[in-house]
């Protein structure tokens, strides 16, 4: 049954349906509404969890680490600076292979201070060893959140559910939330084989010498690659339950015969799709690729999705200064050895909350025609706003 819910509220409800035993969070825009809603659920007795109001994101991540290590389901949420403050813990959680779920309400990273949406935060911890799933809308965010708990448990990897700050978190739209009973049946009780247990007192977080560190990383990398199947399978299973899927690793839409592809993560693709729908008669249509799993990176699925394309526009919502777009670079790397691979046009846009209008579709398609266009650009930057020497 649909309800008109703000994104944050819907996420809080979804989290509550998964019955986490411990929730720890520290407020930060635009994640705040999620923890506020969770707090309210706890205060009203609609959710039974140990809600730990920590003094920093660092502690939030540490608390859920400790809780999960002690054998209970735990959840946290943050954004932006919070992700970076957590960074050290995030690597730690992943390295210890502790199953956790965290929502990231994606936001730019200071300086300059910006509270608005882009992907700089989650991108900054892309190598932390967490699974990163990006959500295109709030329904996906809700569904992915619930799926994430199961993925985390099955893979013994932590899962980061990324949703665009404000654009999704603060947007009210109709959402279907599953019944509690459905979730209870679908999501097995939390189990962590290496949990801290006085009856079987293991030591977690040991010091590993050079003679075994490479093996630790190999095993983690292998687990991430295996998680690709789990992510896809869990999404299919969820579809079996609810009739809704989130696209597995990535989702392709648009006309099959299109020679142009546009790949994006998160909410951007909806606007681009509308732009395509409303494009002028002379503007070509495109195949739209929604990249849901950013880590692990679905190389095989991506190659298949790009089959037959001449051009692939990759939209980044963050930038790696001195390189360009991270998603674009990674996509290029994946397609590098594919014969007849499409030419990559990598653009960052919507940085620091810059509004992306639907007209961007036409502009992007038009830009393909420019033979002098650089391999990467910040597409919506207005160079006139810069001093000449900075353009």
């Amino acid at each position: 049954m649909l309800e008109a819910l703000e994104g944050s509220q819907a996420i809080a409800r979804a989290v509550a349906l998964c019955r986490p035993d411990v929730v720890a969070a520290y407020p930060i825009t635009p994640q705040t509404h999620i923890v506020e809603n969770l707090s309210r659920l706890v205060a009203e007795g609609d959710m039974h969890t140990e809600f730990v109001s920590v003094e920093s994101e660092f502690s939030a991540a540490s608390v859920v680490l400790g809780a999960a290590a002690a054998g209970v389901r735990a959840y946290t949420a943050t954004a932006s600076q919070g992700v970076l403050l957590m960074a050290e813990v995030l690597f730690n959680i992943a390295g210890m292979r502790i199953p956790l779920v965290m929502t990231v309400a994606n936001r730019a990273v200071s300086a300059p201070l910006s509270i608005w949406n882009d992907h700089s935060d989650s991108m900054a911890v892309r190598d932390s060893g967490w699974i990163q799933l990006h959500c295109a809308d709030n329904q996906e965010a809700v569904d992915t959140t619930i799926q994430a708990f199961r993925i985390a448990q099955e893979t013994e990897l932590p899962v980061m559910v990324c949703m665009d700050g404000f654009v999704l978190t603060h947007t009210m739209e109709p959402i279907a939330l599953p019944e509690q009973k459905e979730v209870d049946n679908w999501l097995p009780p939390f189990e962590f084989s290496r949990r801290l247990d006085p009856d079987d007192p293991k030591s977690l977080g040991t010091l590993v010498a050079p003679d075994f560190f490479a093996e630790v990383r190999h095993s983690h990398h292998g687990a991430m690659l295996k998680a690709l199947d789990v992510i896809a399978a869990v999404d299919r299973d969820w579809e079996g339950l609810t009739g809704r899927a989130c696209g597995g690793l990535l989702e392709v839409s648009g006309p099959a015969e299109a020679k142009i592809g546009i790949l994006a993560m998160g909410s951007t693709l909806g606007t681009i799709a509308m732009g395509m729908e409303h494009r002028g008669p002379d503007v070509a249509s495109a195949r739209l690729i929604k990249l849901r799993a950013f880590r692990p990176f679905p190389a095989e699925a991506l190659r298949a999705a790009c089959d037959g394309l001449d051009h692939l526009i990759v939209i980044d919502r963050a930038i790696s200064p001195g390189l360009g777009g991270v998603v674009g670079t990674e996509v290029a790397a994946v397609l590098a050895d594919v014969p007849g691979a499409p030419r990559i046009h990598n653009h960052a846009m919507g940085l620091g909350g810059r509004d992306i209008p639907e007209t961007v579709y036409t502009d992007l398609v038009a830009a393909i025609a420019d033979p002098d266009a650089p391999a990467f650009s910040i597409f919506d930057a207005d160079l006139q706003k810069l001093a000449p020497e900075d353009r």
Partner: protein
Amino acid sequence: MIEYRIHGRGGQGSVAAAYLLAATAFHAGQMCQAFPAFGAERRGAPVTAFVRTDAGPIRLRSQVRTPDFLIVQDGTLLQDAHITAGLKPGGGMIVNTTRSSDEVAKTFGCRALAVGATAMAVEVIGRPIPNTALLAALLQATGLFPIPSLAAALKDRFSGEVLENNIRLIDRVAASVDKDIWKEPAVA
């Protein structure tokens, strides 16, 4: 798809108004989308919020640049000459003001409906919150969604005396605004 832009001041509940309008559409069987213009503004600063309603799913997530309707929660905001920027031809603005509809329409060159929302709210609810009155006026003038949908949306958020007062306020507004005067788009 119908797009709305709400102008208010921090603390007046612009986002609440947007959510209320979206929820009203939802109760009327429409799809909806409501979101604030994500500012860091403090109490009193001008703020905006956006609403889209449509029969089908709404995928567009850009800010509302060409609204069909403007809702102006505070008459003092009319000092901003650009407040109607992007307003679709034939669109209209609902304004909480003591000035007359004609005067506003004349100033901005568009259809305008002036509602003494603050006064009515104070009168019925006892507090100067204009949202319900403005939305009731919008519904009464445009016939976009039935009035009971607004009542249902209010019911999602409020209960008890607050809810009753707001529902009485709807009736009070309905009585003072001519029905369906904006049923058809204005001729540009």
